[in-house]
């Protein structure tokens, strides 16, 4: 038994080539949507520490990339073409489990931090999510994927901020992200990668939730759980408002 433990300890000492670990924290573990919700600012901070038990100091320069991924949804990208003078959606490519929100905060230019293969295989580039399209053939797949990322970026759901992470000291960083008011509610994941000389030496993932609370949660839930009652209440409210309007303004 002791031998096994000793071997295990040895392995743990040997495996991490750079001997660094990431200690990080998120400013809030949930974002609560109330009636006055108009977006929320999140702060990610952390420090790169030597591995437990290691006496070696960790030396920079480091690069930190924080990837925030929102709840996934099935999405289509469509293209309009001109048919007999009328613009109609004719082609479409479907993307299953496509993130509804995707923001990358980095401490420098992504191309300087690492090579494109590492970035793509770790889903750091938004285009990584467009590679698994369902119906796109070899040609239209990448085209629609690029356009989808562009559209999501225009709507503020996707983004890459290459100066989003600031180092306050050699190994202490902080990053700020403003969630827009239309960021979809659901579970979010923040993945933090530490790069040194183009390689990932430490990573950590943290989750946070964007959710409606109080009145907003009540309305959204009743719309889904009791749709018939919800519809009837809407109609009664409308009839009452209309009647009241007539009464108030008559006198």
């Amino acid at each position, binding site marked *: 038994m002791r031998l096994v433990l000793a071997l295990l300890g040895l392995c743990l000492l040997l495996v991490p080539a750079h001997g660094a670990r990431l200690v990080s924290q998120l400013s809030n573990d949930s974002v609560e949507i109330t009636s006055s919700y108009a977006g929320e600012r999140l702060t990610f901070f952390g420090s790169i520490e030597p591995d437990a038990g290691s006496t070696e100091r960790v030396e920079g320069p480091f690069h930190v990339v924080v990837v925030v991924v929102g709840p996934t949804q099935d*999405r*289509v990208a*469509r293209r309009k073409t001109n048919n007999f003078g009328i613009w109609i*959606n004719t082609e479409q490519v479907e993307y299953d489990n496509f993130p509804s929100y995707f923001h990358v905060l980095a401490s420098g230019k992504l191309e300087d931090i690492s090579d494109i293969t590492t970035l793509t295989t770790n889903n750091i580039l938004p285009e990584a999510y467009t590679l698994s399209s369902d119906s796109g053939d070899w040609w239209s797949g990448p085209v629609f994927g690029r356009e989808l990322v562009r559209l999501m970026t225009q709507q503020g759901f996707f983004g890459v901020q290459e100066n989003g992470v600031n180092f306050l000291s050699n190994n202490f960083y902080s990053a700020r992200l403003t969630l827009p008011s239309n960021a979809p509610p659901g579970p979010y994941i923040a993945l933090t990668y530490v790069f040194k000389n183009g390689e990932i030496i430490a990573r950590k993932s943290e989750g946070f939730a964007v959710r409606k609370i109080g009145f907003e949660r009540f309305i959204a839930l009743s719309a889904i759980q009791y749709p018939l009652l919800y*519809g009837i209440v*809407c109609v009664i*409210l*409308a009839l009452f*408002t209309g009647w009241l*309007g007539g009464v108030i303004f008559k006198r």
Partner: protein
Amino acid sequence: MQIYLPIAELSVNLFFLVGIGGAVGFLSGLFGVGGGFLLTPLLIFSGVPAPVAVASVTGQVVAASTSGALSHYRRGGIDLHLAMYLVLSGILGAFGGVATFALLRDAGQLDLVISLGFLILLGSVGVLMLIESSRALLRTRKGVVVRERLPNQHSWIHGLPMRVRFKKSRLYISVLPVLLIGLFIGFVGSLLGIGGGFIMVPALVYLLRVPGNVVIGTSLAQVVAMMAATTILHAVQSQSVDILLAFCLMVGGTAGAQFGAAAGKQLRGEQLRGLLALLILAVAIRFGLSLVLTPGDVFSTAVVGGAR
């Protein structure tokens, strides 16, 4: 002041919502129409997802038409018998419309059909109204007395079978055209998120020869009942009715409608119809251009399935 809309899942300025509700309400009070054909495009343009906009405006149209319908009811300006036939067939049409709405949304052709539908409907109704009202204006300017259309003038429509007597409208006609009109307006109204008053009124006047004193009231009563049913259908089928959005629009809309109705008394009937025709045509042209002009972006994206 920002307000978060729980179903549309975005936050919008409260004063903006009440403001457009009020502006459209003013126009709807002025012209005696629901105003859905203006409100739905405005909301879509300001970032509200199209299904949520269509479904929530349906709720707002109920409120906007209620006060009008009530005051007509007190004056005895509603043919309830006729309205009942229109509403029953209208609800049947609304079932079809709401189902088609979901199908088209999933196929990605909803925008196209909404644009085409608005273009054809508004375009044709607008042109007809413009011709009719400008003729009437020219005639009154020349000093010719305009002869009112006689309610007992008959056309081939009055020769159809299954005749029913509508006492208040002083009509003894087949129910088939009545049911068809109701069915059509129910279908189109729920598909496009409009009350359909601007189609209903000409249809009652020119096809069925319903006398002028009950036309507006009956049409309003039909709009209230049918849009109420459509709101519930949308709530059940797609859960896309945003009660907060609808309420903000209602508050603005009912207030605006009262001022609009007061302003409407200053203008003559033909002038009002002429102005409404221009407004309808402007919206139709706007939709027509969006179909024909090269779009700024040929690519678009949407969520498939899901609750919205």
